[in-house]
Every structure is written in structure tokens, then in C-alpha cells.
């Protein structure tokens, strides 16, 4: 986790500590403070750990499915799957904006004024393949360099990493879920101009080829 808020981190950590950890595995929670950007922060923490399975998540995500680890390990038994997310786009739209197309997966999403259960749709089988997943939570079983050379801030690192995994021959999937596995306390935002700068870099790097 890239962290700048102790209250959020402690709450996210509370839920991580409550997860059922299968025999032979251990939980190692690592944070990056003062990261210059998400990709840079994730590279730092990725390189600091020899864990095979890594979960990159926002500090404002609470994993409420106690069997989360068990369930993602089952999916990762398929070694062609590189990354798992909670929400994803089966087909990335031409403008690179994930919420401008249909998605699968689900979350409990909270802004300041209300909290809702949002189920975008379920795949047919145990999981569904997507082109990109949302950065709120990204679980991997392989290490790939996060493109901090291209994405210096807090945007498009998720779509970029999804495309990097696919470029390297791995699948990206979203599990089938009866109800969401996580709360995302997303807050409110009017997107800042840096999002749109990153979007254009993403399109030139991945979509116009």
C-alpha cells in the first residue's frame, strides 16, 4: 500500500489481519510512505519482497471477504493468470477510461454522502477475463515492472500494468462474486488535469498500436 493516512491504513490492516490464511502461507503487510507516484511506490515495495503473491491495494480498501486469500490462490492455480482485480473491463474503450464501458465485478463503494453495493456483472464461470482492472486492488502472482517511467503520478498505473501483463502473455481476471469482496472508501473527486495527461500517455503507449 502507498499510504498517507494512518487512520485508513490501520483500518485496512484490521481487515487484512482478519483474513483466513491457508497453511504454509503468511501475511506480510508493507507500505510505502511519501511515494512520488503509485507505479514508483509499487515498484519499491515489489522489489523489497520475495513474496510470490502480492496484493497491491489502496489504503482506503477494506477486504471484507474473510476467504479472500483462499479464493485468489485457487484462481492463481491457473498459471496463465497473472493478475486478479475486483472490477475490470472486458474490453477497454477507445478513450482508455475504464468507467466508459461495461465492466464486471463488484464493490461496496462509499463517498461522503452514501455507501452502495455495486455489482457491475458476473462472469459465466469462476472468473472472467478482462483487458484491465481497477487499481483499487490488484493481486499478482508474477512481478512485472510498473511503468513509473511513463506514469509519474496517481493515474493510469492500473490500466498500464494490466496491459503490461497481457503484453507478457498473462491473463487478467475478475472473480465471480455473490457479493462484493471489498469496501472502497473512494471519497469525492473532480478529476484533476493530471488524470487526463496520463490518459493521453496511456492511449499513445497502448491503444494506438
Amino acid at each position, binding site marked *: 500500500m502507498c499510504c498517507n493516512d494512518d487512520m*485508513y491504513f490501520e483500518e485496512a490492516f484490521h481487515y487484512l489481519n482478519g483474513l483466513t490464511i491457508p497453511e504454509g502461507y503468511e501475511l506480510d503487510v508493507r507500505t510505502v510512505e511519501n511515494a512520488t507516484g503509485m507505479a514508483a511506490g509499487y515498484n519499491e515495495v515489489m522489489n523489497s519482497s520475495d513474496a510470490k503473491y502480492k496484493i497491491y491495494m489502496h489504503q482506503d480498501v477494506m477486504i471484507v471477504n474473510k476467504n479472500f486469500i483462499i479464493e485468489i490462490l485457487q484462481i492463481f492455480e491457473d498459471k496463465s493468470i497473472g493478475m486478479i482485480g475486483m472490477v475490470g473491463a472486458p474490453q477497454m474503450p*477507445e478513450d482508455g*477510461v475504464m468507467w466508459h464501458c461495461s465492466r464486471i465485478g463488484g464493490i461496496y463503494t462509499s463517498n*461522503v454522502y452514501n455507501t*452502495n453495493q455495486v455489482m457491475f456483472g458476473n462472469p459465466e464461470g469462476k472468473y472472467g477475463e478482462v483487458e484491465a482492472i481497477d487499481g483499487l486492488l490488484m493481486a499478482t502472482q508474477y512481478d512485472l515492472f510498473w511503468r513509473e517511467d511513463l506514469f509519474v503520478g496517481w493515474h493510469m498505473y492500473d490500466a498500464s500494468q494490466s496491459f503490461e501483463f497481457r503484453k507478457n502473455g498473462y491473463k487478467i481476471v475478475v472473480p465471480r462474486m455473490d457479493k462484493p469482496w471489498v469496501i472502497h472508501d473512494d471519497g*469525492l*473527486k473532480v478529476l484533476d*488535469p493530471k488524470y487526463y495527461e496520463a490518459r493521453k500517455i496511456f492511449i499513445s503507449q497502448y491503444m494506438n498500436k
Partner: protein
Amino acid sequence: MYTSLEEMTNDIEKGEKKWHEIYDKKAKEVERKIDCLLADLSEQNIIALIQLFECEHVKTELRKTVKIGYMICVMSIFAQEMNAGERDCILSLGGSISDFMNLMKQVKFLLWRIEFENDEDAIEELCAFAASSPASPQFFAEMIKYVNIKKNHMFTRLGKAMGDYGLEHYREYLIRQIC
């Protein structure tokens, strides 16, 4: 009518850039003003706060920002407390925007622990907080509405717990929220 998604997105970008040009500075000014008024809660300053949150640009545009969003919730709770003739009032619970954000986050987290983990300690903590602070029944009811998915379940659960804790006034109010 757009001919492509890219065209639509470029248009959205222009709109949001303009929004930031107009409202980023205004948001900071309003936040500074709120903090000044909260730091000295005279009757005059409370009236000034109420009037500030009645401004159109606060209600429609600045509500899209996190800090002012939280304070809109605070002022909404305050209005309900005043209408109900409550002795206790949310404005006594903090002296700055940051205080109120931290308070509401703490309560939010406890309400989620109750809803998603059936956490008895979290219930106990909320009841103790109600008993020992100026947090009103309206505060807890509105927090449930902002934060929880199964609201009626939470009104019942927390209402019963408050009653068991000897907080009958809170129990009655929460149970009345069930719809």
C-alpha cells in the same frame, strides 16, 4: 451529440479543467472560513456557518470536494438536531474540518465493523461514545444513512444496543428511522 468517445472525453476534460480554475481557489477560501468559524463557536459564528452552507456555489459545486462534503453532512446533522430541539449538538464535537473528518471516519469504521464483522466491541465503543459525549441520536442515525448498506438492520441493531446501555432516547430515535 458526439461522434466518438474520445470527443466526449475531451469535452469532459475541458469542463473539469474549467471547474478547477473556478472552484479550487474558492474551495480553499471556504475551508479557511469554516475553520475560523469552527474555532470560535459563538452564536454569531454559528449563524455565519449556516448562511455559508446555504450559498448556492457551496451547495452545488463545492459539495464535490471532500472537506466541504464532510462539512455539508455535519451541518445537515446540526440542522436536524436543532429541529428536534436536541440539547446535544455535533458542533461541540470538533473545532476544525479536520476534527470532524476524523470523527466521522472513526464512526464510519465502527459502523462498518458492526455491519460486516458483527463486531461487539465496535457496538460497545459507539454506545460508550454516545453516553459520554455530545453526540446526538441524530448524529448516529445520519451516519448510518451515509455509511451503511443495510440501514434498517443497523438502526435495529444499534438501537437495541443503545437501549441495553441505558440510552433509551437514542434507542427510540434509531428505531423510528426504520422504513
